[in-house]
């Protein structure tokens, strides 16, 4: 007889499933303003505490407090709010477009708008983003033509990517937006390589890498961190912890007991954990990390704590795996509402202007969609000839032959 009990292994479970009450008691939320702001050249070991707290700037009354609140330009906040409203309007309309059968697929970033938009605001032209699929805010907060995004989503004759890519996997080099891959996590190491190149050339540009909490389990996340720890290139790692990876909660990616930010410690990379629904906090921490990288102090990792309010994609039904009210119970609130209240409290914004902005952007998206639709919906207008181009710079003989056989 063995002295041992049969072994069991452990499968982490979220705090609630459909039918349960949402429960966020595990998420410890510190007071706004309580996290310190370290020196730009601090050593990673000196700020280990910032990987377990949540850096927050806006308090419950909508006031900006603490050391991270200093020196934020009002214009950045007003532009940021508008870009968030615009992004949400865009997402709503694209969702409808998919429901109407005019495109095959769409993914919203509802509740996460502040992260991409405030981070972008902290960048300088020429800094490159290596996004995943939920950073539409990186484009929608710039002058990138909205209609081109819709053309891409429709795969029509004006699609800049000629119908070759799944909707929303944009590419916009002119707007510092690397081509999005459907293979999760691969872009994380590309950002490191790009940042290494910037350093090799003695440039002053930095790279920002983007990944979801679920995808931090991919090899390339770890490849990226080890490379960055070795070569110390100017790269900012952004983990968007929106609690869910399709139906798997963050614990399945290993983020239940230890924070994602803490992973950086083994690599001697400084890391910070931030309220991703607090536009001011996102902007301030992004600015700090980008400045640090640009000054030559190496990589920074940031975990943005947020919640994926929308379904994973148009093919997903979250009511099948999480409590129905969980998204509304999210204790860090809605990034748009929070920034709106902050700006109203400071007399920089009003309910009327907000309502007006909402309808203006609705209208802008409606018009852009209509215009895009006139160039074809869901593949109509794209040419099969395009399928053969751009596999290589020059069309090799075997592809020429295949194209000829197709008669295009």
């Amino acid at each position, binding site marked *: 007889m063995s002295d041992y009990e049969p072994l069991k292994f452990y499968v982490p479970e979220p705090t609630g499933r459909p039918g349960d009450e949402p429960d966020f008691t595990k998420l410890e939320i510190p007071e706004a303003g309580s996290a310190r702001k370290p020196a730009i050249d601090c050593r990673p070991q000196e700020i280990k505490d910032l990987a377990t707290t949540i850096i927050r700037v806006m308090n419950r009354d909508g006031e900006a407090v603490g050391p991270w609140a200093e020196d934020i330009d009002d214009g950045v906040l007003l532009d940021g709010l508008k870009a968030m409203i615009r992004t949400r309007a865009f997402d709503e309309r694209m969702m409808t477009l998919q429901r109407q059968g005019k495109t095959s697929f769409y993914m919203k970033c509802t509740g996460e708008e502040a992260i991409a938009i405030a981070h972008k605001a902290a960048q300088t032209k020429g800094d*490159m983003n*290596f996004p995943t699929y939920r950073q539409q805010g990186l484009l929608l907060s710039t002058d990138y033509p909205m209609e081109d995004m819709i053309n891409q989503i429709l795969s029509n004759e004006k699609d*800049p*990517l*000629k119908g*070759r*890519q799944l909707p929303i*996997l944009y*590419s*916009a*080099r*002119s707007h510092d937006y*690397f*081509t999005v*891959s459907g*293979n999760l996590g*691969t872009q*994380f*190491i*590309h*950002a*490191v*390589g*790009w*940042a*290494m*190149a*910037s350093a*090799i*050339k003695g440039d002053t540009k930095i*790279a920002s890498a983007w990944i979801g909490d679920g995808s931090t389990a991919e*090899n*390339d996340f770890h*490849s*990226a961190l*080890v*490379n960055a720890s*070795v070569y110390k290139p100017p790269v900012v790692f952004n983990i968007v912890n929106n609690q869910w990876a399709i139906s798997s909660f963050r614990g399945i990616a290993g983020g239940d007991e230890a924070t994602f930010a803490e992973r950086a410690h083994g690599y001697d990379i400084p890391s910070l954990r931030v309220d991703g629904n607090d536009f001011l906090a996102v902007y301030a921490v992004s600015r700090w990390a980008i400045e640090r990288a640009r000054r030559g102090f190496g990589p920074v990792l940031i975990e943005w704590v947020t919640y994926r309010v929308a379904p994973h994609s148009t093919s997903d039904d979250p009511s099948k795996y999480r409590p129905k009210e969980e998204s509304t119970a999210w204790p860090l609130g809605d990034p748009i509402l929070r920034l709106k209240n902050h700006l109203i409290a400071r007399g920089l914004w009003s309910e009327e202007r907000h309502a007006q902005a909402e309808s203006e952007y609705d209208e802008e998206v409606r018009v852009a969609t209509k215009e895009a639709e006139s160039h074809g919906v869901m593949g109509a207008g794209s040419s099969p000839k395009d399928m053969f181009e*751009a*596999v*290589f*710079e020059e069309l*090799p*003989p*075997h592809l020429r032959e295949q194209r000829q056989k197709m008669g295009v």
Partner: protein
Amino acid sequence: MPQMSMIEAIRDAMDVKMAEDDNVVVFGEDVGYFGGVFRCTHGLQDKYGKNRVFDSPINESGIVGAAIGMAAYGLRPCVEIQFADYIYPAYDQIVSEAARLRYRSGEQFTAPITIRTPVGGGIFGGQTHSQSPESLFTHVAGVKSVIPSNPYDAKGLLIAAMEDPDPVIVFEPKRLYNGPFDGHHDRPASNWSKHPLGDVPEGHYTVEIGKASTFREGKAVTILTYGTMVYVAEAAVKETGIDAEIIDLRSLLPLDVDAIVESVKKTGRCMVLHEATQTSGFGAELAAQVQERCFYHLESPVVRVAGYDTPYPHAQEWDYFPGPARVGRELKAMMEAV
């Protein structure tokens, strides 16, 4: 003209490109200070500095992934995967990323990277240091694959690869690194210095990617082969006296279909020969091309001679590796077939 081994020719190719183009960077496991386990990058770090030639962590996905990012920036990375057997951790980065960047970005981003990697057996490397995974890459749209069989081609193809606007994998047959191979394992490798293909011009030249070369002219049968097997074919021809034409493909993708068709139409028979396992190997593609294009010129079925469909065995390496005897037997059988 200087005489060089294949290793020296490969090193010279990188040297030429690094001197010409500041954007060329070289990295991989052990390639910096030490100069690579096969010494292909020996001396380059001293010459060009640590900023352009450096050691990478043991992380193949990271090597290729970082190269892609650098290429997106505008550099021209030439990376080494220490053995082709270790390219699998980088497989996703090669096939999903490097190969498709141009396509999926509407040509806004491209990945002009060169991946060098030693392939093949014959050095008692066992299953993990002997593999020939070329067909896993020729199946992928957007990446080119080349494989030289001598120092001249090695330098010319590598320079061409480093100048190519698309990702290129250069498979380097490690059995040929130091000298040509006479097809027999029990005879010591001869030295490239006495071989005409060891004559390597100084400075810049290229061997066009996508063009095969006729290694030996003949009338009786065409042998389509590449890399180390070129010399096995040569030995078999010598030993059987069969007047075979040996086509050294040099480039697997793009493939020089015209050269293949021309030769097979002339000889009326075709053998495809490679070291990689037979099933779904590159020989299957070659046989299909010949069947489609030369069927009415064929006097006998296309024959495949390849490695067996087993992992690469260590102790039985020389039974696995197609040798002149096996090739000779098959050649004779083909000639008897009507």
